[in-house]
C-alpha cells in the first residue's frame, strides 16, 4: 500500500467507518459473531489492494486461490506426494515472478550480449504481454506465499487451514505490498481466528510507530530525495553527496514504510516483525545484515542459503556469495543490482579471510576504536549504495572513475559543488541533514545504553509528539514513491 498516497487513507476511512459502525451496532444488539472480524479484515485488505493496483490484484487473486488449494492438498498427503505438490506450487509462484520481473532482462541484457540485434527487435515487438511493468508487491507476496508453503510442509501439525485465515495472512493490508515478509510461525497464529483488538495500549503503541514512520518517510526521505543528482558524474564532491544522501534516503524511506505498517497493524492488535533494527549503528557488515531488512535477509537465509548449502558446510563461503548475488538480483533485473549483491557478498568474504588476520595484526599493535569500525562499515555501505542507485552502467563507470581520481578532490571542485545550490536549497538541506543526524544519534544512544529497543528514545511519548508536529510542519510537498515499490 502506498502510505504516502492520499487515496490509501481515504479508502481506509471509507471502508473502516461503515465496517466498524456496523460492528459496534451488531455487538450492541448481540448479533455480531466473532468470525465477522476475520471477514471484515479480509474485505478491508482486498479493497485496499484493488485500490493500490488492479493489475497486480488479478495476479494476486490467482496466486491466492492456487496456493491455498495446493497447500490444502499438500497437508492431506504424505511423503513424496506432499513434496511434489510443494515443489509444483513453489515452481509456479517463482515462474510468475520471473515472468513479470526477469524475462525482459534475460532477453535484452543477457541474450543480447551474445546475439546481436535481439534486444532491439525485442523492444520493437514490445516484449511479452504484461512484462513491461512489475505489478506492485508481487515480490513480497510471492515470497510470503513461498515461505508459507515451505513452513506448512515442514510443520509437524498438519491441520487444515481456513480460507479466510489464509487470505488474511497473505493480504494483511499494512504489509502485503512491501513487507515485512511475515512467516507462518509469527503472523499466522495472530491472524487465525482474527479479532480486532482495539485498546488504549494498542492505539498508543500504534501511534508511536506511525509517527516515527511518517516522520522518516515524509520529512527525512522525501526532503532528501530532490538533492540526489544521478546525472552528476564529474564533480567528486557532488557524487559523494548524492551517494550519502541516497544512503540516508533508502533507509528512511523503507524503514519509514515498515514502521507505518507496524503502527497500522498495532492499531488492530497485530504485532508485525521489526524489519529494521537501527542498521546504521552497525560496527561491522555482518551486523549490518542482521539489522537491515531483517525479514528479507532471513528469507534468503532460510530458503536459499541453508537449503543450497545443505550439509556442505565447507562450501558455506561460496553459497553465501551466491545468496547475496541472488538477493541483489531480486532487487531488480539489472546489472547494477547484481553487482550490488555480489559486492556485499564479496565484502563479507574479504572481511572474513583478509580482514580478520589484518585486524589481529593491527589489533595487537594499535588501538582500534569502535568509532573506526563503525565508520568503515558505514563507508562500505555507502559505496554499495552507489551500485544500488545507479542503473546506468556507463554512468556508474564514470562515477567510479571520478571517485578514484585523486586530483578530482580539489578545492575548486568543492567550491563549484557548494555554489550549485541556492541559499534556500542549502538551508533546507542543512536543516534536513541536522534532523537525520539527530535521529541517527538517538538510535546510537539507545544502542550504547543497551536499551531493549533501538528505537526506544525515538518512541518515547514526548519525542513522538515532536515527530508528529515536525511531520505536519516539514512534510515534503511532493512525496516521492517508496523505493521498494519498484522491487
Amino acid at each position, binding site marked *: 500500500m502506498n502510505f504516502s498516497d492520499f487515496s490509501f487513507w481515504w479508502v481506509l476511512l471509507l471502508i473502516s467507518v461503515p465496517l466498524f459502525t456496523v460492528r459496534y451496532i451488531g455487538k450492541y444488539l448481540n448479533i455480531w459473531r466473532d468470525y465477522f472480524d476475520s471477514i471484515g479484515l479480509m474485505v478491508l485488505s482486498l479493497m485496499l489492494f484493488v485500490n493500490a493496483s488492479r493489475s497486480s490484484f488479478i495476479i494476486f487473486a490467482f496466486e491466492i486461490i492456487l496456493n491455498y488449494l495446493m497447500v490444502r492438498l499438500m497437508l492431506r498427503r504424505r511423503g513424496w506426494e506432499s513434496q511434489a505438490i510443494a515443489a509444483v506450487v513453489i515452481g509456479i509462484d517463482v515462474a510468475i515472478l520471473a515472468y513479470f520481473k526477469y524475462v525482459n532482462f534475460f532477453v535484452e541484457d543477457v541474450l543480447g550480449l551474445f546475439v546481436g540485434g535481439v534486444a532491439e527487435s525485442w523492444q520493437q515487438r514490445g516484449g511479452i504481454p504484461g512484462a513491461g511493468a512489475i505489478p506492485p508487491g508481487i515480490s513480497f507476496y510471492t515470497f510470503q506465499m513461498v515461505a508459507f508453503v515451505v513452513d506448512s510442509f515442514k510443520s509437524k501439525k498438519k491441520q487444515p487451514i481456513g480460507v479466510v485465515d489464509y487470505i488474511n495472512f497473505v493480504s494483511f493490508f499494512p504489509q502485503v505490498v512491501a513487507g515485512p515478509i511475515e512467516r507462518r510461525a509469527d503472523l499466522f497464529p495472530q491472524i487465525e481466528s482474527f479479532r480486532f483488538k482495539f485498546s488504549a495500549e494498542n492505539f498508543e503503541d500504534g501511534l508511536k510507530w506511525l509517527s516515527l514512520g511518517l516522520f522518516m518517510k515524509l520529512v527525512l526521505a522525501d526532503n532528501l530525495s530532490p538533492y540526489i543528482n544521478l546525472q552528476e558524474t564529474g564533480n567528486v564532491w557532488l557524487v559523494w553527496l548524492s551517494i550519502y544522501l541516497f544512503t540516508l534516503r533508502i533507509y528512511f524511506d523503507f524503514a519509514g514504510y515498515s514502521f507505518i505498517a507496524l503502527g497500522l497493524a498495532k492499531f488492530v492488535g497485530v504485532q508485525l516483525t521489526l524489519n529494521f533494527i537501527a542498521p546504521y549503528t552497525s560496527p561491522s557488515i555482518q551486523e549490518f545484515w542482521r539489522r537491515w531488512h531483517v525479514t528479507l535477509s532471513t528469507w534468503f537465509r532460510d530458503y536459499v542459503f541453508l537449503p543450497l548449502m545443505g550439509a556442505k558446510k565447507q562450501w558455506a563461503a561460496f553459497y553465501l556469495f551466491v545468496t547475496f548475488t541472488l538477493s541483489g538480483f531480486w532487487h531488480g533485473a539489472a546489472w547494477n543490482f547484481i553487482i550490488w549483491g555480489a559486492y556485499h557478498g564479496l565484502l*563479507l568474504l574479504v572481511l572474513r579471510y583478509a580482514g580478520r588476520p589484518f585486524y589481529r595484526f593491527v589489533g595487537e599493535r594499535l588501538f582500534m576504536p569502535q568509532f573506526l569500525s563503525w565508520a568503515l562499515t558505514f563507508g562500505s555501505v555507502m559505496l554499495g549504495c552507489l551500485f544500488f542507485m545507479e542503473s546506468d552502467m556507463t554512468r556508474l563507470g564514470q562515477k567510479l572513475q571520478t571517485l578514484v581520481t585523486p586530483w578530482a578532490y580539489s578545492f575548486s571542485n568543492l567550491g563549484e559543488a557548494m555554489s550549485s545550490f541556492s541559499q534556500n536549497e542549502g538551508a533546507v538541506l542543512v536543516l534536513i541533514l541536522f534532523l537525520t543526524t539527530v535521529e541517527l544519534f538517538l538510535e546510537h544512544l539507545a544502542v550504547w545504553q543497551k536499551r531493549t529497543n533501538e528505537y526506544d528514545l525515538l518512541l518515547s511519548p514526548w519525542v513522538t509528539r515532536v515527530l508528529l508536529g515536525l511531520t505536519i510542519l516539514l512534510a515534503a510537498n511532493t512525496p516521492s514513491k517508496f523505493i521498494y515499490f519498484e522491487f
Partner: protein
Amino acid sequence: MQLQNSSSKPSEDLSKNHLQDDNMIVENSPAEAIQTWLVTKLSKQLSLNAKTIDVREPLTRYGLDSIDAVTLVGDLEDWLGCELPSTLLWDYPTIEKSAEYLVKEFDVSAAVSPVASSNVKDAGSDKTEKVEASSKSSGWGGLWNRISGS
C-alpha cells in the same frame, strides 16, 4: 558458579573457571557448560581472548558471520550429539540465550555431564572419535557412514 545471579560479568566468571585449572572445567549447570564450550570455541575461532567475551553481547559484536554461525552449530551438534536448527545462532544471538534454549529444548545431559565437560577444550579433536563411536553404535547407519566416507 552462579552465572545467572552473579553481579560480575558472566564472561569473567567463565574465564576464571578456565584459568583456575586448564585441564578441568567444572560447571554447576548444563547451561553454564554450554556457555563455556561456546566461549572456548568462539575465542579459538575468532582468535579472541576468552576473558573479553561477554555471554550477553550479540555474537556479531565479536565478528561472527554467517559462515561461523553454520559451522559453529555443526560443531555444537557433534558435541551434543543431537540435530540442532541451523538458524540457532541467529534466533538466539547471544551465548546466554543459545545455551538457555538448548537446555530447554534438547536433552543435553549426556554431553554436558562433568566428565564430558572436562573435555570441552578438546571438543574439536573429539569429533573424529564421536563419529566413530556413533558409527559403531548405529549398525547399518554406521556402515553407510563408512561407505560414504562421512
